């Protein structure tokens, strides 16, 4: 029954649906695996997002100057908190990448269909008389594009954070073997000011976007805060995004030497 199909040359893309079997035989073991995959991708994402916020506060110790940063960094390494954390994050990172990527369509053609639909839904309503009146039905649908950006930022993070993680893990474990300390303000500042700030600036934007949108989608999927409604949840997501992005920009500016540490007076004397 493939006679009534629309050529895909025009924008309306009709996927032909032939006659299908009356009932689908689903493999229960495969269905069971899907639940575990879904739980794994959500749980690792949640853990990584929360870790990134904690990470922001730890690196943020640079705002109190090199003394504060070193106090935090040395403590984490001396009490063997940093080493297992680095290893755990590396594992979570890989598991999350594999599990989350399983929903990204493999074919470029398919991703283009998704992108075109997302763009249309996102553009709808803009400049419409209905939207000018504030009619809710004419609010653009942004979330399909948000998801597409989630994939894009995810890919960037996969590359850049791999570099960062491998660099840090090799430093930390090398130092531990030799009985020394790896993370130190002088070394970190030299690295960031030596040009790595470019990498960390891109990573910062991608991670904050990816984490806040990811947490928002997790809330949607499992029904947390369902009473608040999507609109409010989206607002909360936006606030968190800009809050951590703003904090991150200040921290990065201090690390790059463009700003003096604003809280240095706290540890003076």
């Amino acid at each position, binding site marked *: 029954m493939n006679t009534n199909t629309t050529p895909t040359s025009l924008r309306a893309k009709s996927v032909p*649906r032939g006659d299908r079997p009356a009932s689908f035989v689903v493999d229960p073991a495969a269905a069971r695996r899907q639940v575990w995959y879904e739980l794994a991708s959500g749980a690792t994402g949640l853990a990584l997002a929360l870790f990134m916020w904690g990470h922001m506060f730890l690196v943020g110790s640079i705002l109190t100057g090199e003394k504060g940063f070193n106090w935090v960094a040395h403590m984490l390494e001396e009490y063997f908190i940093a080493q297992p954390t680095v290893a755990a994050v590396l594992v979570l990172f890989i598991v999350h990448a594999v599990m989350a990527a399983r929903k990204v369509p493999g074919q470029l053609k398919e991703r283009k269909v998704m992108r075109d639909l997302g763009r249309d839904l996102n553009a709808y309503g803009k400049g419409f008389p209905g939207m000018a009146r504030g009619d809710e039905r004419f609010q653009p649908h942004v979330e399909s594009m948000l998801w597409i950006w989630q994939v894009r930022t995810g890919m960037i993070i996969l590359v850049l954070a791999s570099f960062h993680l491998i660099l840090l893990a090799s430093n930390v474990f090398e130092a531990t073997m030799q009985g020394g300390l790896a993370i130190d303000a002088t070394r970190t500042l030299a690295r960031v000011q030596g040009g790595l700030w470019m990498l960390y600036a891109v990573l910062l934007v991608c991670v904050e976007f990816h984490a806040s949108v990811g947490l928002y989608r997790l809330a949607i999927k499992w029904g947390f805060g369902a009473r608040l409604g999507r609109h409010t949840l989206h607002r909360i997501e936006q606030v968190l995004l800009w809050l951590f992005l703003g904090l991150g920009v200040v921290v990065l500016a201090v690390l790059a030497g463009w700003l003096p540490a604003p809280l240095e007076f706290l540890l003076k004397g």
Partner: protein
Amino acid sequence: MAENIKTARILKFDIFRYNPAEPDKPPYMQRFEVEEAPYMSLFLALNQIREEQDSSLQFDFVCRSAVCGSCGMMVNGRPALGCQTLTADLPEVIALHPLPTFALIGDLSVDTGRWFRSMVDRVNGWIERETEFDRASIEAPMDNATADKIYEADRCIECGCCVAGCAVANVRPDFLGATGLNRIARFMMDPRDQRSEQSWFEVVSDSEGVFGCIGMMACDDVCPKDLPLLEVYSYVRRKAVASLFSSGEDHPARREAEKA
């Protein structure tokens, strides 16, 4: 609203034209101009075009009041019901395409029936009981809250807008879509249905079911009947996880049936 229009706009309809019965004629966009009338819906405009300009234009309408679900179409790239959409809300240029994901009958007309029939067959969209139905006995009472929830899910008119607006359904022809999950949720909630959580699990949890969804929630935004599709989605997900940890014998209706 429409009465605020000082001089009537000349609306420009760009309509997708293709007739599968004439496969040699490639699809194209045809422009029709219509003078806007107060409270004009797409239903009125399209009928006027067919009446006065081109009698070969194909589109579907039955009830004109957002109940039959046959006039779903892509309006400027977003799925909507033609009868429910007023031209006064839209810009001067209105692009109309048939709903994607469904087989095309011609121009704006698509075959949603075959899709929905196949979906209902797959999820066994009816009440299943192990005990024989006794027509003579009085129906067991249902509490109001449950009845309300079931009624809410039953308001679906099967127009296909949620499927057409769904990114996953646009690339995966077998994906159940929001309407499919809504159908499943409706029978999951129904105390008369005796299916175990385990048997539901097999229907909903595979990658063409609830875990194929990536949560963009376009369905929730475009649904012309404002069905609580977000609640349906998280409800079915939580049920699927719960069934992972259940023996499958704990459905209340089943327990009662065993007691009897």
